[in-house]
């Protein structure tokens, strides 16, 4: 069953504002299939070579792939490198 957008998300869409600035959702930027940046995250849930799960408030990410590694991480963003096969939201 698809997740319903929150009030903040709907308001951001109506006002043409960046969704992540109002709603409690992460921002994912994928460059090709080798690099991904996750901003506004809430920490890591799982970390492994083939699976990384990132908490993002109302939405969590599950990134699958091979030789995944965390190149950099701070309070707001993290940078992942490796062979990204798929990204799931849960």
């Amino acid at each position: 069953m698809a997740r319903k957008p929150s009030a903040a998300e709907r308001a951001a869409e109506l006002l043409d504002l960046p969704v992540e600035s109002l709603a409690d959702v992460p921002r994912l930027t994928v460059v090709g299939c080798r690099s991904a940046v996750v901003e506004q995250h809430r920490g890591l849930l799982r970390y492994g070579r083939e699976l990384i799960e990132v908490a993002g408030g109302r939405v969590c990410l599950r990134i699958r792939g091979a030789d995944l590694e965390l190149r950099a991480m701070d309070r707001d963003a993290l940078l992942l490198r490796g062979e990204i096969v798929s990204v799931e939201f849960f």
Partner: protein
Amino acid sequence: MYRLTESLRGWVSAELEGAETARFLNRCAETGVELRRAVPADDFTLSLRFRRRELDAVRAAAEKSGCTLRLLRERGLPASARTLRGRYLLCAGSLLCALALLWASLHVWEIEPRGLERVGEAELLAALEKAGVGVGSFWPDFVNERIKCRVLYEIPALSWAAVQVRGSRAVALVREAVPPPEVVDEHEAVEIVAGKAGLVTELRVLRGEAAAQPGQTVLAGETLVSAEVHSSFEKAAPRRVHAIAEVYARTWYSLSACAPLARTETRETGRERLRLALEAGDRRINFYDSSRNLPGEYDKLTKTYRLAIPGVFSLPLALTVERYRACETVRTARDKAALRAALEARLTERLRTEIGETGEIREKSFSVSERDGLLYVTLRAECLENIARERRLTEEN
């Protein structure tokens, strides 16, 4: 660039073991610890790299996450500096070397003259020494204009001088003055005389009166073209001119040269001695007993190794290696044919110098004889050359 900055800041490579490695990473992110290359080796092991100054924060995060942190390697400038702690002599020595290099680079240790043709190198170096440019001089004090004025005053044969300093090497650039050409006084009374004895074949008189004729035999010093020119008017007195003429005559030469038929050669016996010396500025320190002479005959080969980077700087320190190879003298006979050819060539060259560029060798022959262990070669030649020479007329003449 990133690697350079990381090396300057220092980094630590470590291994984390525990069940909650993700929790450890979250804790590091919350406390602002910057982790580089957090690579999971397996589900419970993580290898990571972070800055040296964040070690305490990483340890605290590992402890709170229930993980074990094991340091593997520490690199960078802070780690290297820590190894030097306590090595005061090494630090002091390094500092001293750096200061010595800096001091040495501000002084001239080598002077290279360029542009010399007739003026001697020793003369130029002496003039530079008086101008304040010498071995050991402080080159920031050099003023090119002052050096140029002093050098030109000391050596009038120069027209320009300058000094360029590259590292510890001073290049003295000079230009020699071009001597002014001899000005011929057209009104001076000069006659043409024979420079050598010969048989006149041709006279080309441009100014003056011919006093000799083709076919006439003349001796050296005889007047060929007179400076007194008679006027076509009978009552007019003769006038004196600067005679100009070319007088070609047949001349004969007999030149001899000799060379020994045997020569002395040195042959190395295989024995060798080595002597070392250290040169510091003007001083020389011999690492051998200089009062003792080596017995027998030796060939000496000297090589100097200077402490310098070519083209950049040089220090006033040099190691001199003197290699003495023992040799014995042996007399060997020379090849007569080769010796004769060499002597003939030398005589021919000498003849060409005698007759000048305009002269021509018409006939030549060589005769050879041996006497008292010497080979004598005589050149007899007939030449055609310009024998005209100028002679100034004095009041008595």
